[in-house]
């Protein structure tokens, strides 16, 4: 029983990271109908930034610096991607474009950092383990859960309670109407795209001590984030949160309960959810029903 409680905890840690990564993907899709396949590459940029800045040392200042640099670089990348994908109206073209961009970014990273697997040490002050339910548990993962909770509350307040948030939600619901009210939706779109990408890059930094940095990690993360977004409902903050927590638990608790079927769990869960609710669990409210 205790074993399963530890798994639940672990699922929350993974869920927190997934939420940070999936949020931008979901909002961008909800607003612009753009499936940003470069989202995983942006995550990987964050992971390599923390590798570069904390090489050998696990100091807290270096780690905090990595978070800030990743947020900035991620936002710039997001802005560029937003500009690129706004230049072409077709969905398949946008998917092709962002995938092309992600290949270029990932190859550049592997040219700079090599193809080796890099690992990241957690800051020395939080690198140890504490006893949870009588088992050793890494302190860092507890911090990640804390970060996830803070992020969830922060984003909820921002998106659901602030003026800027209502603008964002309105743009998701009916971009044309918002535009007709004299608001520059283009700026909102680029802003959300950049913020979402920045968050993904920060996710890459924070996931560093858990998942490290290696070629190919971008695809795995992108796939998980896509599953989260689709399960939660496209364009919805609450959906992304629910999806992330759910997938985190399916990965951790599900694997603990059904280790023989571990490889089928994620897609099985997704298939099940989509069969029952094709639009996802908590889809964004839309002005015109699809």
């Amino acid at each position: 029983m205790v074993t399963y409680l530890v798994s639940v905890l672990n699922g929350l840690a993974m869920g927190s990271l997934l939420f940070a990564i999936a949020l931008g993907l979901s909002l961008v899709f909800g607003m612009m109908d753009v499936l940003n396949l470069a989202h995983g590459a942006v995550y990987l940029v964050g992971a390599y930034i923390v590798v570069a800045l904390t090489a050998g040392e696990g100091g807290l200042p270096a780690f905090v610096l990595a978070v800030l640099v990743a947020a900035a670089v991620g936002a710039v990348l997001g802005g560029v991607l937003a500009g690129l994908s706004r230049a072409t109206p077709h969905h398949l073209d946008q998917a092709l474009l962002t995938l092309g961009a992600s290949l270029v970014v990932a190859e550049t990273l592997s040219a700079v950092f090599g193809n080796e697997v890099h690992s990241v040490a957690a800051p020395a002050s939080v690198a140890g383990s504490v006893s949870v339910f009588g088992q050793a548990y890494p302190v860092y993962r507890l911090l990640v859960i804390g970060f996830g909770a803070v992020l969830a509350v922060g984003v909820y307040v921002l998106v659901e309670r602030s003026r800027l948030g209502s603008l964002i939600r309105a743009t998701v619901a009916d971009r044309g109407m918002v535009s007709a009210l004299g608001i520059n939706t283009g700026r909102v779109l680029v802003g959300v795209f950049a913020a979402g990408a920045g968050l993904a890059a920060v996710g890459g930094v924070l996931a560093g001590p858990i998942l490290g940095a290696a070629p190919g990690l971008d695809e795995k993360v992108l796939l998980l984030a896509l599953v989260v977004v689709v399960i939660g409902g496209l364009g919805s903050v609450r959906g992304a949160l629910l999806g992330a927590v759910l997938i985190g638990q399916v990965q951790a608790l599900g694997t603990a309960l059904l280790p023989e079927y571990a490889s089928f769990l994620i897609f099985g869960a997704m298939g099940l959810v989509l069969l029952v609710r094709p639009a996802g669990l908590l889809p964004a409210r839309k002005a015109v029903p699809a």
Partner: protein
Amino acid sequence: MKATYETATSAADRTEAVDDSRPRRIARKALVAVPVLVLLAAAPLVLGVYPVSTMTRILAFAVLVLSVDLLTGVTGLPTLGQAAYFGAGAYTAALVGIHLTSDAAVQALAGLAAGLITAALTGWVAVRARGIVFLMLTLAIGESVHQVADTWPAVGAGNGLAGMPPISLFGGPPLTAAGFVYWWVLAVAVIVFAAVALVVRSPYGRTLRGIRDNEPRLRALGYRPALARYGVFCLAGAVAGTGGALWAAHARFVSPGDLAFEVAALALLSVVIGGAGSLWGPCLGAALVLLVRDNLSASIGGHGPLVLGLVFVAVVFLLPRGLAGLTAGLTAGLTAGLRRRHRKERIP
């Protein structure tokens, strides 16, 4: 929400709009198709082993790409699951080759049946959805089938299924030379291409395009889009399965990688690069993608993906309607130019 990945008017449709009458169109197509076919058929007479086997792989892959185009380009359903049916066909053909007969025709039919049956069994999950949800459901199907192939000892699990003897035709001797295998693959690929072209031009094909462009209206007119979607999904599965059998006939080896995400993604990208909805555009896209991946990577120190990425970005900006759009634009321009000249000539 606009969740459907509609492709607006496809490149093929626009090409047709450029032209005026049906017989002329057919004559023009024949004039392009015949030399292309003759050249394709003549390739083994002049080319070495490696170029021919590269072309064989491209043809088999192009059949898979056709099946993706049928779903994505014609019906508007973006899919990442066709590699599963391609793999089902390839594994079935290899098993038939190892245990039953080396007859390539039997293997191809077995591959077709396997693709059809697998698609019929799994398709009902996916066809209820559209757009990105359809994409993700087909991805889930593809990954699940891949996982089965990767862990099932009866088909060699991760090591793949090896030991398939060379194919033979109509009771003849085993065909070990690349050129003969190529001719067989070319013949089947051309038949499949023609069959798909017929379907696309039939009333059923119009229904499919109707689903892509405006499904509610189609439903209002009394059509049953759900049934048509399931039908095209099964058909695409059969096409992909045939492609898989051709792949196996050439490689004589099948491994889980043949139905991995990468194959499905490259197939979808070939369709987008080629111009979704056109039939020959995606085939050219398939050739481009495979050539870049297999031939360029070693010469530039393993950075093939970088070139592939740049190609993708370039295609989006330089060829907004894919490779098919390129020639459609060219012919349109030519026609306009010729017409202008006519007018000048007529002015005395």
